[in-house]
């Protein structure tokens, strides 16, 4: 394995006294010093692999990892709060030994197991991540999370492709968006870093491959090749290419090459236990609406493990829980937990560093929005759009911990990282302004991405500052570590 800066960082971290790591100010300063010292020299790691899962709709952070020690949590959420001994299985949470003040949703069973490992396991839970200029619009906030920018630019490219040109990867598909529509996070019009958008290419048979030749099923190979050459004709001077026309044409050329490569690659042998989609094995609990998600996840993991791709992204919808949150979240968390388990098991079987990043556009309101009585037609039992939210990072180089969700008065393993600020008790929830009835964020939503670029992929600050569209903003974050919102968390 290449000895890279991340190994150095990990070695340094492991050598640091536990007391230093547990002290918020010392650990942050130490990390910054380390990062500064390591900011030049070695190349980025072309073997690093990342899976991103976007929880569309704004996942409710407080019912994912619940602050059960906050005295106002049950009263703010009379109708939907989680508790350790709840009789309603959808309101049940479990305690993690290392963090007895919080409860993890009962359906996140695998995550609970990982977090219960000695040293916090390979799971970083980043709480109170958010946009300090929040609009609380799904579409604006998703756009910002996906572009990695504070400023809304309608045509901005995603932040993922910006990592690609300098990564030095030889993977044929450096990044793949496995989604119905090309996720903005993966969108780029630049040919040298455009991500691949795949969905529906593989069929759903147990042995999955591209079973028809490209473009014209049933044709002899010679004609297929002729068609492929024709489709990928580089002659673009015969007529004007306006706007998206040039991107469309270059994308077609790339697509033909990629599809040809995939067609020649070994088929994916479906594992219906790990990726329940075909109701074989033990998948009877699964609703058919998640079939496509698991098939895409299986493709994604295959691409990462085969070295076909460095970064793959999926999305899971349904988290806009204005109504009926308990049932919806329980179902979605069961799916998410299974997905993380399968991805983790398969990715950790290899030797290359990997990271599973789970993000959402915002958290939800601190208070619930009404009566949960299922017999009342007009019951809500949900939450509206909030600000401060949560993301997860799980992986081989993750510094496991619960970030931004501890308090000096709460019991906690002394060695566990605490993040950059204490938990603000719900009693302090603002009633007006940008953060009205919402969790006030502690850490800017871009910080986890900057840390991933820096400490997982191994770019230095100069390289990050040179990224096309996010370079200026991310560079400012690195340059202004005096601001709490900008401070790196040290989770990876």
């Amino acid at each position, binding site marked *: 394995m290449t000895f890279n800066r991340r190994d150095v960082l990990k070695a340094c971290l492991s050598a640091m006294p536990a007391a230093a790591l547990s002290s918020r100010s010392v650990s942050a300063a130490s990390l910054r010093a380390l990062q500064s010292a390591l900011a030049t020299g070695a190349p980025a790691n072309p073997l690093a692999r990342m899976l991103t899962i976007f929880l569309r709709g704004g996942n409710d952070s407080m019912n994912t990892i619940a602050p059960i020690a906050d005295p106002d949590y049950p009263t703010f959420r009379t109708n939907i709060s989680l508790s350790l001994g709840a009789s309603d299985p959808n309101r049940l949470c479990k305690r993690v030994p290392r963090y007895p003040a919080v409860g993890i949703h009962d359906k996140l069973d695998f995550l609970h197991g990982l977090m219960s490992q000695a040293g916090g396991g390979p799971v970083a839970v980043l709480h109170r991540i958010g946009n300090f200029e929040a609009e*609380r619009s*799904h579409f604006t906030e998703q756009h910002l999370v996906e572009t990695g920018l504070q400023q809304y630019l309608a045509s901005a490219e995603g932040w993922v492709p910006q990592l690609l040109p300098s990564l030095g990867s030889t993977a044929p598909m450096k990044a793949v968006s496995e989604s*119905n529509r090309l996720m903005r996070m993966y969108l780029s019009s630049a040919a040298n870093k455009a991500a691949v958008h795949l969905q529906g290419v593989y069929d759903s048979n147990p042995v999955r491959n591209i079973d028809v030749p490209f*473009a014209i099923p049933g044709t002899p190979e*010679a004609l297929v090749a002729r068609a492929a050459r024709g489709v990928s004709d580089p002659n673009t001077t015969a007529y004007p290419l306006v706007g998206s026309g040039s991107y469309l044409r270059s994308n077609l050329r790339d697509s033909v090459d990629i599809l040809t490569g995939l067609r020649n690659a070994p088929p994916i042998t479906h594992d219906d236990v790990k990726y329940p989609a075909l109701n074989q094995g033990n998948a009877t609990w699964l609703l058919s609406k998640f079939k496509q998600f698991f098939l895409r996840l299986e493709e994604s993991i295959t691409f990462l493990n085969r070295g076909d791709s460095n970064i793959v992204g999926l999305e899971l919808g349904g988290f806009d829980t204005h109504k009926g949150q308990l049932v919806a979240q329980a179902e979605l968390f069961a799916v998410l937990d299974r997905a993380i388990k399968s991805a983790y098991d398969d990715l950790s079987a290899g030797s290359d560093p990997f990271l599973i990043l789970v993000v959402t556009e915002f958290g939800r309101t601190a208070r619930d929005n009404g009566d949960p009585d299922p017999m009342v037609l007009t019951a809500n039992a949900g939450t509206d759009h909030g600000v401060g939210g949560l993301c997860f990072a799980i992986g081989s180089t993750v510094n496991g911990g619960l970030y931004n969700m501890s308090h000096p008065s709460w019991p906690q393993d002394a060695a566990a990282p605490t993040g950059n600020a204490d938990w603000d008790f719900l009693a302090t929830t603002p009633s007006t302004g940008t953060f009205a009835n919402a969790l006030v964020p502690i850490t800017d939503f871009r910080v986890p991405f900057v840390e991933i670029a820096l400490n997982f992929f191994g770019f230095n600050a100069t390289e990050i500052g040179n990224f096309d569209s996010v370079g200026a903003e991310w560079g400012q974050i690195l340059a202004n570590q005096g601001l709490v919102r900008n401070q790196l968390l040290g989770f990876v």
Partner: protein
Amino acid sequence: MPVTSASLRSPSACRRFANAVTPLALTLTLGLDAATAQSVSREEVAHVLRHTSYGPTPTQLTNITTEPLLQAHLTAQLNAPTTGYSAGAQPYMSLFAPEPLPPPPYTGGANHGWDRETLRAKQIVLALTSDYQLRELMTEFWERHFSTGIDKVKATAGTGELAAVYYEWHENDGFRQRALGNFADLLEWSMESAAMRFYLDSNTNCSNPARGLNENYAREVLELHTLSPGPAAAPHYSNDVDIPMVTLILSGMIVNQDGSPGYLAACHDFGPKVVFANSPVPQFNAPGVVPPFQTDLNAAREMALFRDHLVAAPQTQAFICTKLIEYFVGDHQAVDPTLLTACTNAWGADGDIKAILGVIFASPQFRNATGAPDWTRVSLPMTRVVSQARILEGSLGPATLLDPLLVRLDRITTALDKIGGLPFAFPSPDGYPAESEAQIGTSVTWIYGDYAGRIYADALASPADQARNLIYDPVTLLQTEVARRNLNFNLAGDVALSGIELQFHSRYSTADLNTATAFLTLDSQTGLPDVWPPTGPNAPTEQDHRCRLMLAFLNTIAQASEK
């Protein structure tokens, strides 16, 4: 989506342009005198039809030869009847359940002759066959604008699959009737539709503390349906004041058992409310209603006043007009501020869609009168797959029974399903994305390639597979095109040229033409070079296969996705 236009030009300049184009737009008639009668290129006719319909047919391209004929066509499209179906669509529509559908509740197990498959099929059949193409295109436009997903409607309503289909069907019919009407009616229809009330939880937005308020609809009606969020420096509404206030104004909406809209005074907030006090949007004041008058009717009235306020807001007008311009003119550059002003000037009191479209269609930006028409958009999925069928004269066959008709749509619905573009299925309230960049991707290439290839592949397959596709007769189509151009069908280059120019006019490269020609001169079974036209006992079949291969290929290249 935020308004993307930059700064407007001077008001006087805007007025001059508006005065120049609006009368023209509103008086598109057949009665142009001989001096103005002028021939129009086939390419320009195709440009107009690509943007105002689900693509041209060869017959349309042959028949519309002059500017007056083109203007007459647009006038007829803008004045399509609000109800009923055209002669081209009626035989197929008669196979569907009689309309209007009977409203819920439905007794368990009853078969009413419709389901979500027929609901989707209806949209596709109308896109393929309706002579009121603009009406259908705008129906789809408003379906996306006021998007509702049937799965969530079903889950929220809790009244079963059949009722969910009814809600969507009913809402869609209303959009069709209002597609070329005015925006105020469209907004009212959407706000009152059971589909929307269930989809965005407005039926659970109750001011009674025991029930609870729900912000979902209030937020989206401002952001997605009317005002748009506005620029970050001067947002159109605030999260901490305006959204909660609008939530109160819109509290008390319910859905009656038969799917009709209801208003519940017990769930409506009758207190005084002020909205947009600190925003560029004109302020709205609801003075409040005292107890004797706190009725269902007065709850509805307050909502109606607010709805009218939204329609009249300049921000709504700019947002809707921008969206229409980007859809019809192109999204490759910022919206021309002069055209935007002309459109908002045509808005009138209620948002006159026909007048606005008239302004757009008469604008130089739409026709690009300075030169060859730009291809300025990438087609949305429905347009992409239907336009291929229309230009190749794909046929649904005789209108005999519904079931075979549904089977024949299989290739189209499969492509739309794989691409995530099935009607009524988009999972979030912003609707299927209209931006060109969202229509591009590796799997999109594969899906459209597979769809195009079925022109050829299904001809080789079993009768059952053939029945799953439209009926294509490529030889006759190409023979007609070759004859129209006075070319020679026995020359492969002439056939290829006719096929490529039928679809793409001057927009092709030499390599495109050479590859198309190659498919006519290679044996379809072996891929080896052969003479054209083919000879031997299987010559007719082989000729058919090669023509299909060539047309399939042409429908995989970039131009097939552009409009």
